[in-house]
């Protein structure tokens, strides 16, 4: 028998996307939400595709490999992000290198597209490196704010929520075509990384 909540899924999806498409312009930068530093940090992450896409790729990769991988990434990445962010708060300056950003897209997108049989340790290491690198850059960027540590917590919460939702969504996928769709998303991320690499060569 069909679950009633499952049969209403299209309706819920339609309502959510209708509201999403009618959204007003977002003021995503720090100190612009008016709701305090926690939400400033949270919204800053959600409006930063250079942060979101690698996290999403890692979540999809971990979810594709299984629940144990997802759990490991879920707790490693936010902690590493927080550690990197706190280190960045006390740093003077750092410039995000476009080659490294492209390399993350290529690496994580490529692993996802290939459905690579990475080990739990390798997934954990990737999550730790990604978290420390991006957290550090975020920390440096918000270092001059008095409430930066609270904003960083909001940002880390957003990372936790995204990786939890995305990994859990993929873990429960059983249909072959759905898992293929996740791998196609990986190929798109890797392809974006290649173009970013070319762009970085052009501008440097």
């Amino acid at each position, binding site marked *: 028998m069909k679950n009633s909540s499952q049969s209403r899924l299209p309706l819920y999806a*339609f309502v959510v996307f209708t509201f999403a498409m009618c959204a007003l*312009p977002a003021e*995503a930068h720090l100190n612009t939400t008016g709701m305090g530093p926690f939400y400033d940090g949270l919204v800053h992450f959600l409006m930063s595709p250079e942060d979101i896409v690698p996290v999403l790729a890692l979540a999809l990769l971990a979810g594709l490999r299984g629940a144990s991988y997802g759990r490991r990434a879920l707790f490693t990445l936010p902690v590493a992000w927080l550690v990197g962010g706190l280190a960045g708060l006390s740093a003077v300056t750092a410039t995000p290198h476009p080659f490294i950003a492209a390399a993350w897209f290529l690496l994580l997108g490529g692993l996802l597209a290939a459905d690579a049989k990475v080990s739990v340790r390798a997934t954990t290491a990737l999550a730790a490196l990604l978290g420390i690198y991006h957290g550090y850059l975020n920390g440096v960027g918000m270092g001059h704010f008095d409430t930066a540590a609270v904003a960083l917590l909001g940002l880390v919460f957003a990372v936790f929520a995204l990786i939890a939702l995305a990994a859990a969504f993929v873990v429960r996928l059983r249909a072959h075509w759905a898992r293929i769709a996740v791998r196609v998303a990986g190929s*798109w991320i*890797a392809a974006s990384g290649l173009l970013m690499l070319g*762009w970085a*060569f052009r501008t440097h």
Partner: protein
Amino acid sequence: MNTPRHNPLVRATALAVFVFLCAQMAFAHPQKGEAVGFLTGFRHPISGLDHVLAMVAVGLWGAQLGAPAIWVLPVAFPLVMAFGGMLGLMGLPLPGTEYGIALSAILLGAAVLFEVRPPLGVAAALVGFFAIFHGHAHGTELPPGQSALLYSMGFVIATGCLHALGIGIGTVHRWAWGQKFLRVAGALVVIGGSFFMWKAVA
């Protein structure tokens, strides 16, 4: 029976994609013009009919060949196309780009027209070879001053959507009339490719 067509998740996804594609422009980061970068990238592959014909033909051919080609070809094309785009961005020349693009539409259309069924490796190599020409042409035409990340994502997503369009049309292959329809579509792609080849030569 819970076929993909009757699966609520599939229907919700299809609806969401439709609504998303109808969305108005969002200026979430007005200081950087990033939303404009995404839209510029998204519009680039669909702005030239020669590119559209070839990319839709890849999807049609994949649907004709069935699994695993139905997903291998659309995965291979954006990746290799992005590699070609990277070469174009780096300023490495590729001779005969326009001829390659027109020839890709002719050959891919012919593959659909005659329902050619080569080994998967050969099909992927053929698609990948022509993808370099498409990517290089896009790479050399990229406008300055855009967000590299969002431009790239819009560019790749638009390409993927064109493949998905081809695959979606190609699902009619399960019916006899659909097989004829696809062959007619392949013939139209050949005609279009021939027109662009004539333009490139003239």
